[in-house]
């Protein structure tokens, strides 16, 4: 497959998923209106506001927060010339400014990149990945991470997280209102409502957070697939990243920080993939990523 076609296909998919999220918001607002009438709408700004506040801060200073959370140490050009060169090379291929480069003391091979825009980006490698991979493989990993920077994936995931967060809050508010005071509110204007619509809106309010979570994870998986393809666009060498992913697949050590809060930023999911189902994963399975890259080999 041609990387340019794959790239636009993945972008279209993300747009569709984000559109799906917007649709979900619409449906939830409809459910609110149906169940609680106009008073229901009053909580929407609160839910969106709280979600925005909680996600915005971590988006805006994502570079600093993640460095603290993972204990990554910034390295300078003088301290690790080869790593600096490796990252600079891909930055030239991508037309990006050179990001801050950091190393995480951890035996598990893994890497991540974050930052609100290319000028505030940070790319980090574990000591494990620097030890087990050769230059070609590390080049592939670097390209994948810088692809996240180039594709603004911190922003995409912040948008997805905000929407999912707002929906979870809305649903929570609503269910509380139903339990503690639903009876009075319902008098407003929906006595004449179709009971089927009421039941449907109740079901929607209960299921919306789960649907939002699934959409958010699907977006995360698409962005991972896109980053693999964009990486090939930078290096024109699918083999390096494919071999790197094979090294990760063969490796059984897992990053010590099993926190779900930062799971999505690593190149390989630090959470044990075999136990969580595909639907609840932040990353596509390694096997399918390897297969896609293999299909691109000899086809550039």
């Amino acid at each position, binding site marked *: 497959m041609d990387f340019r076609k794959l790239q636009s296909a993945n972008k279209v998919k993300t747009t569709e998923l984000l559109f799906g999220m917007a649709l979900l918001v619409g449906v939830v607002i409809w459910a609110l209106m149906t169940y609680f009438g106009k008073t229901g709408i009053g909580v929407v700004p609160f839910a969106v506001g709280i979600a925005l506040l909680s996600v915005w801060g971590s988006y805006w200073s994502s570079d600093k927060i993640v460095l603290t959370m993972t204990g990554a140490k910034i390295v300078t050009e003088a301290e690790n010339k*080869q790593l600096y060169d490796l990252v600079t090379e891909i930055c*030239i291929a991508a*037309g990006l400014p050179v990001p801050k480069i950091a190393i995480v003391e951890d035996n598990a091979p893994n890497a991540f990149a974050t930052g609100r825009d290319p000028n505030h980006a940070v790319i980090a490698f574990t000591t494990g990945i620097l030890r087990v991979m050769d230059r*070609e493989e590390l080049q592939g990993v670097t390209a994948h991470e810088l692809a996240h920077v180039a594709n603004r994936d911190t922003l995409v995931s912040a948008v997805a997280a905000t929407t999912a967060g707002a929906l979870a809050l809305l649903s929570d508010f609503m269910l509380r209102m139903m339990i503690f005071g639903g009876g009075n509110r319902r008098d407003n204007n929906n006595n004449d409502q179709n009971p089927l619509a009421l039941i449907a809106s109740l079901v929607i309010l209960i299921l919306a957070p789960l649907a939002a979570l699934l959409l958010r994870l699907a977006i995360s998986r698409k962005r991972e697939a896109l980053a693999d393809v964009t990486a090939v666009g930078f290096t*024109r060498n699918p083999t390096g990243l494919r071999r790197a992913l094979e090294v990760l697949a063969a490796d059984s050590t897992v990053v010590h920080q099993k926190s779900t809060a930062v799971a999505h930023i690593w190149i390989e999911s630090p959470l044990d993939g075999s136990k969580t189902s595909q639907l609840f994963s932040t990353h596509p399975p390694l096997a399918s990523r390897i297969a896609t890259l293999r299909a691109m080999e000899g086809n550039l």
Partner: protein
Amino acid sequence: MKVVLFVVVILVILALLAIMSRNRLVRANISVDEAFAQIDVQLKRRSDLIPNLVETVKGYAAHESGTLEAIVAARAKSTQATTFADVAAADGQLTQALRGLLAVTENYPDLKASSNFLALQEELSSTENKVSFARQFYNDNVRTLNSAIKTFPSSLFVKSAGVSVRPFYEVDDPQDRKAPQVKF
């Protein structure tokens, strides 16, 4: 009244589209210039490495004076090159000459063991990668510009934006796409 409003809205939308298409061309053209400047920066870096490299290799491999002279000559040509075609041609020659040198150094264990040479070799192969990625980035940008020039609606604004189809930066080098592999 309604008709007038409708016409005005349509005109505003068309004007915005026109401005966006023209800006797209201008921006693509600037990107090509910037990408070429990046090639220039990397070629200059590579040029700067060569005197040191030649000195180091000379001490260990006096027999390779032919290879070294080829490099010095290619470097001189590349520093004098001014036109786009000359820069690319000189770049290709120097790339090949350097690759020839790195190939013959295999025969000199003393040289390969020298720490000075090892540092130079890392520097040189990284620079070689940077040059090659800078060329690739330039060509990607030329591709974007050229396709904007040829596709509608931006094709309508080629004259007013003052842009034209730009040539790809092609180096006469069969191995160009393959960055040299260095293990570390």
